[in-house]
């Protein structure tokens, strides 16, 4: 393949050669072999093969010997496995623990680009928050006709049980993970909002720890903004919400348990925050208050950072067969005796059909122009739109409106005839459950990939970015986020549940 180079054929770089190269902007030998793929945006190289300036600090990595790289990869994988930095996969066998493949070449975002992204993310989550508050409150945006009422009421994510519920600081979305992609024009767009129980932040933090272990000098010399304060920031936000109602609130993290795919993250965050990690069986509601069962009796919980979907939270109100939640939670919530973060019902804001209206929301609630564009989205509930899309179904990406994690997404250009036929009949049966988007040509990043022969080569892989936005009394954004890599060539879905890997994400400071 023209874009692959054999890493072995390169002599190790010297500090002088790298310094010289970055100072003069001359081409380095490897950039002649690693050709940025035509028609795609390469994060590290320009279309003519020049290294983008903010990537200069990591050039030595591309000149390492095959055995050095292999050693790093083995060190990283062993470290992840032994530390139990794993996620569980359900397909086939129950509870297989897998590591999230890690690539040593970091993804780098320069200061200016990040500043703009950060402002756009804060703006977006602020608007999404206002939207959730409005939908379960006055419903102004529906009355004003900006979003069709039935689209909201028919959404699988709409929760009648929380209509009229007041939450502290009017914050429904405490934690948001906004998926960003960079298209072939080099511009970032929002691909998806995750405002229910977004995951992945622990991998971002662990990736940094591994990078620090593998390439400490490179990291130190690069002026990368630290990210280690995330758990403290999260606890601060949760405590700020709690302090609106209680003095010295107790915060706990609710997990579905060790078999959940994100259990490692639940452990990691609760440990870093120094709070109890509770399961449904540890909790009980009494007198419309939430308690946890301790060896000394029942202890009050004021703020519940839940990592369980709405449906499983309270068998009294939602799914009666759920053993993961706690009966009576919604009543305690309504009595104002407990705060749940994210609030119940926030899923209405990351419904894929609602996504189409997010630029309008930003203008409506904030009176501002959206900083971050979205991907053009077509609602298949509209007949003319549907007919047009169905005519060229293989040209579109089709997504179910209420799913997350990449499940159910069909990429038209990559789908088989049979998949398309099946999809067509699904859409015709339940058109409101689907949206269509034109495929985004995700940007690519040089990535070390081991071939079938176990040999490493440098090649390009598609990536995205999931930054994490926290809201308490003020917004806090993790500098960077989780960069996910589609580890198979040409594959556009980067979700860990779909076999993706990840990279450390560096945001450079202002001086760099």
């Amino acid at each position, binding site marked *: 393949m023209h874009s692959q180079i054999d890493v072995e054929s390169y002599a190790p770089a010297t500090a002088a050669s790298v310094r010289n190269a970055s100072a003069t902007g001359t081409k380095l030998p490897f950039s002649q072999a690693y050709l940025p793929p035509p028609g795609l945006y390469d994060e590290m190289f320009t279309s003519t093969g020049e290294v983008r300036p903010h990537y200069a600090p990591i050039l030595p990595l591309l000149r390492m010997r095959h055995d050095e790289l292999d050693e790093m990869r083995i060190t990283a994988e062993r470290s992840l496995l032994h530390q139990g930095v794993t996620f569980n996969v359900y397909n086939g066998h129950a509870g297989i623990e897998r590591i999230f493949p890690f690539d040593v070449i970091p993804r780098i975002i320069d200061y200016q680009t990040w500043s703009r992204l950060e402002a756009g993310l804060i703006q977006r989550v602020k608007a999404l928050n206002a939207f959730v508050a409005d939908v379960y409150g006055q419903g102004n945006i529906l009355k004003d006709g900006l979003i069709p009422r039935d689209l909201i009421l028919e959404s699988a994510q709409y929760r009648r049980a929380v209509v009229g519920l007041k939450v502290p600081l009017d914050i429904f979305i405490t934690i948001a993970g906004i998926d960003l992609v960079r298209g072939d024009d080099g511009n970032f767009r929002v691909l998806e909002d995750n405002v229910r129980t977004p995951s992945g932040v622990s991998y971002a933090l662990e990736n940094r720890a591994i990078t620090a272990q593998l390439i400490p000098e490179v990291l130190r010399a690069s002026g990368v903004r630290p990210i280690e304060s995330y758990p403290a920031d999260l606890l601060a936000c949760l405590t700020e919400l709690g302090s609106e109602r209680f003095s010295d609130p107790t915060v706990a993290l609710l997990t579905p348990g060790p078999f959940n795919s994100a259990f490692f993250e639940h*452990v990691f965050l609760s*440990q870093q925050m120094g709070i109890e990690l509770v399961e449904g069986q540890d909790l009980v509601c009494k007198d419309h208050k939430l308690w946890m*069962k301790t*060896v*000394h*009796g029942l*202890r009050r919980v004021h703020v519940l950072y839940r990592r369980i979907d709405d449906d499983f939270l309270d068998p009294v109100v939602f799914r009666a067969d759920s053993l993961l939640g706690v009966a009576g939670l919604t009543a305690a919530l309504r009595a104002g005796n407990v705060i749940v973060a994210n609030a119940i019902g926030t899923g209405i804001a990351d419904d894929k059909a609602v996504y189409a209206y997010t630029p309008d929301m930003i203008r409506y609630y904030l009176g501002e122009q959206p900083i971050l564009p979205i991907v053009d989205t077509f609602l298949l509930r509209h007949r003319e739109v549907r007919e047009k899309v169905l005519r060229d179904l293989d040209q579109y990406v089709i997504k179910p409106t209420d799913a997350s994690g990449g499940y159910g997404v069909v990429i038209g250009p990559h789908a088989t005839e049979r998949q398309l036929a099946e999809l067509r009949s699904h859409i015709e049966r339940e058109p409101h459950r689907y949206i269509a988007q034109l495929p985004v040509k995700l940007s690519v990043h040089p990535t070390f990939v081991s071939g079938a022969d176990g040999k490493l080569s440098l090649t390009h892989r598609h990536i995205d970015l999931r930054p994490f936005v926290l809201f308490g009394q003020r917004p806090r954004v993790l500098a960077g986020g989780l960069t996910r890599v589609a580890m198979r060539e040409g594959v556009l879905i980067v979700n860990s549940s779909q076999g993706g890997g990840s990279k450390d994400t560096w945001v450079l400071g202002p001086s760099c």
Partner: protein
Amino acid sequence: MLRRIAGNLFWLARYLERAEWRARLVDANYRLLVENPGSRKDELWPLLTVTGEWELFCEDYDTADERSILAFLTFDRRNRSSIASCLEYARANCRAARNRISSELWLEINTLHLEARRWNSDLLLSHGLMAFFAELRQHFYRISGLIENTLPRDLGYDFLSLGKWLEAAENVTRLLDTRYHFLLPHPRDIGSPLDFAQWTALLRSASALESYRNTYGNQIAIERVVEFMLFNPTFPRAARFCIDHLQSALKRTPGAWNGETEIIKSAAVDVPAADNLFNKLRSGTAAAAIAGGLHEYLLEIQNDCAAIGDQISAAFFTGE
């Protein structure tokens, strides 16, 4: 501390202790075979009687030779008490209580668990079984060291202690019981060189041989071994030492609560079986235990241990 987490920590310590005792037991008896020329290939089988797993073994294996018995006791996952199974349960409890455990301790336990997944007969025998067990011992010592050096002396530590000391006390009685089961197949063997080797192996499997000699000198006599392993107040693997420490951990549990606001108080912690065994081991003597029937006496202690386990579980791990 959550009731569930307290239970996880208790069982984590129990399974670790059980795995360690298992390893000592197999190691010491294998050593005995190696050091006694002419021993037969199946001479590990009494271990299956000691551990009470003879029937389970027969379900899965056709022949009881060295290889199959070692496999069964060491890494066979169908045997819920094999060393690898114990490590797997320890690790599962550790994972569930992960946020109460230091990262260093978790790393060590998870690494050992991952290694245990790769165990097989060839691996065990390739470098020699003794080398295998020597390395395994190092893992257990590292784990103990990490527990002592990286965990705060709080409730979590107390529940780990409860599990450890209860399991250790129970295992000491099982070890002594091997005497009843197979160390004395024929009365005429008493006092013979084989008898001496077997008692030595027994003490060695509790890492007690050196301490015993420091206390009683070179002569190994049944009464003194029983005195040492059951009633010695200073040796960490003696039953009395274990129950003394269990009792003090138990006494600390109500006091470790630091008065958080808004708590509904539970009934007082009640583990009468622990008081009972505590007093029994303080007033007991080897002479009396042997006179009344050693096996019966050991069974009684095992029943006391089971009752302590039940009462701890009822007091701390279940209910509101």
